[in-house]
């Protein structure tokens, strides 16, 4: 019988050996054939309308109007309550989405190809900060921006990516780590590096100079633009590590604003869930913890591959933004997460830790043994639909997910 340590080395190898390339932007219906009308993919483990939190409901209402399935937000809410929409997790369709994580037929999706294993993963395009759909915003400004992303930005990015033959993400991430990004709540460097590589192809393929100017302006003002690329990359890297017998490495961590869920390689695609925690962080002027929704989004896929809070030592500036302590404490997060992983990624190193690789491959055994819950950097959504982002902070994954997973994992090994 294969040992757990052997299986975990294989799981880690598959995550680390992936070669992710951002190859295209396509309409979601072309990438995911199951995305028929009235089908909505969301962040986190499975959930129905009745248990959805405020920002998830706000996003559902907004996207239903955007897709033309409802005449207004009230109509969308009524239809949702009446069961007119089919809800499925992004993770069940090779996709991920930040915060509410709405993925529907007409939205453009980033396509990341894992050239080592031949699989693809998808994520929507980042809308910027503040009042945006993924945080539950759904007014005319939000929906107008989504239409522009669908009609102008998405097609422009797709043409540029096809023209330049794709952008290899592994070296780009490696460079971003040396420039102060952790790829979850700080993407300044990687967004800039991506724009630098894309700009010539955008200039060659944009249909009008006005479109080109608008695209460059949007990318230049959005420090978090790269987050969605990093998320699609995370999904593309972790999917090949699914379903390895005897492997106790986590292949997904995700939240729908009500439940936190994890998947573990050796237990297949089963979700292990628990109530989500409340982030601890800093709030934008005029907001406080009383306004905050609990943890939400598929974005914890970046921690699953060793970035985000796991790579905090690379990004001391983000510690202050998140209200997570002093910049000098950044390395503490990374060192702590190193205690619960199967290994390190030699391709992604941190200068401040003498170029140690980021801790990668969360082992549920180590989480349960040490009671060290994975830390996740996150944005904070307002608890009510329609408001948007109100802050940013850090949050812990609930230990119950890992404890339940350990019990089920032991049963797969006939050790329960």
């Amino acid at each position, binding site marked *: 019988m294969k040992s*757990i340590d052997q299986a975990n080395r294989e799981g880690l190898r598959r995550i680390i050996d992936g070669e992710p390339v951002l190859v295209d932007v396509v309409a979601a219906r072309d990438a995911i054939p199951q995305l028929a009308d009235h089908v909505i993919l969301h962040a986190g483990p499975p959930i129905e309308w009745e248990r959805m939190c405020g920002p998830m409901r706000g996003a559902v209402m907004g996207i239903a109007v955007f897709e033309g399935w409802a005449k207004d937000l009230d109509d969308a809410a009524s239809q949702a309550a009446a069961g007119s929409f089919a809800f499925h997790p992004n993770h069940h369709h090779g996709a991920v989405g930040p915060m509410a994580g709405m993925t529907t037929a007409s939205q453009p999706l980033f396509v990341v190809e894992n050239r080592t294993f031949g699989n693809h993963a998808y994520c929507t395009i980042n809308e910027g900060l503040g009042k945006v759909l993924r945080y539950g915003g759904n007014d005319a400004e939000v929906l107008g921006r989504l239409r522009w992303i669908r009609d102008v930005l998405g097609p422009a990015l797709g043409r540029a990516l096809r023209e330049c033959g794709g952008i290899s993400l592994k070296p780009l991430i490696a460079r971003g780590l040396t420039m102060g990004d952790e790829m979850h709540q700080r993407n300044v460097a990687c967004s800039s590096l991506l724009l630098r590589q894309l700009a010539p192809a955008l200039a060659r393929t944009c249909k009008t100079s006005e479109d080109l100017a608008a695209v460059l302006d949007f990318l230049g003002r959005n420090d978090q633009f790269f987050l969605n690329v990093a998320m699609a990359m995370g999904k593309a890297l972790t999917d090949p590590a699914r379903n390895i017998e005897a492997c106790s490495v986590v292949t997904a961590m995700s939240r729908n604003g009500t439940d936190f869920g994890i998947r573990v390689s050796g237990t297949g695609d089963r979700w292990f869930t628990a109530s989500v925690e409340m982030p601890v962080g800093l709030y934008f002027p005029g907001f406080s913890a009383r306004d905050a929704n609990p943890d939400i989004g598929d974005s914890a896929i970046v921690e699953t591959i060793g970035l985000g809070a796991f790579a905090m030592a690379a990004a001391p500036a983000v510690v202050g933004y998140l209200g997570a302590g002093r910049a000098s404490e950044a390395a503490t997060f990374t060192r702590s997460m190193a205690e619960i992983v199967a290994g390190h990624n030699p391709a992604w190193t941190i200068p401040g830790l003498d170029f140690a690789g980021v801790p990668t491959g969360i082992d549920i055994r180590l989480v*349960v043994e040490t*009671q060290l819950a994975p830390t996740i950097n996150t944005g904070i959504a307002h608890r009510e639909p329609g408001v948007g982002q109100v802050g940013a902070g850090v949050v812990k994954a609930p230990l119950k997910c890992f404890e339940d997973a*350990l019990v089920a*994992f*032991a049963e797969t090994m006939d050790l329960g």
Partner: protein
Amino acid sequence: MCPDEAQNRVEPNALLTAAPRVVNVGLELFAADLASQGAKVVHVHWSPPAGGDARLADLLAKLQS
């Protein structure tokens, strides 16, 4: 004091005469209290496997390979 007594006198152990130097294992509160009183203290994070949950600790022991 006679000469014999002087020869046989045992010097107090330095542990009792010098300022305490402490390695604290487990509960961090003890380390914090000592540090607040100026003592040199190194804290070692430790807790029982699985936070002391016997069932999970037993499973972990079976899954160590």
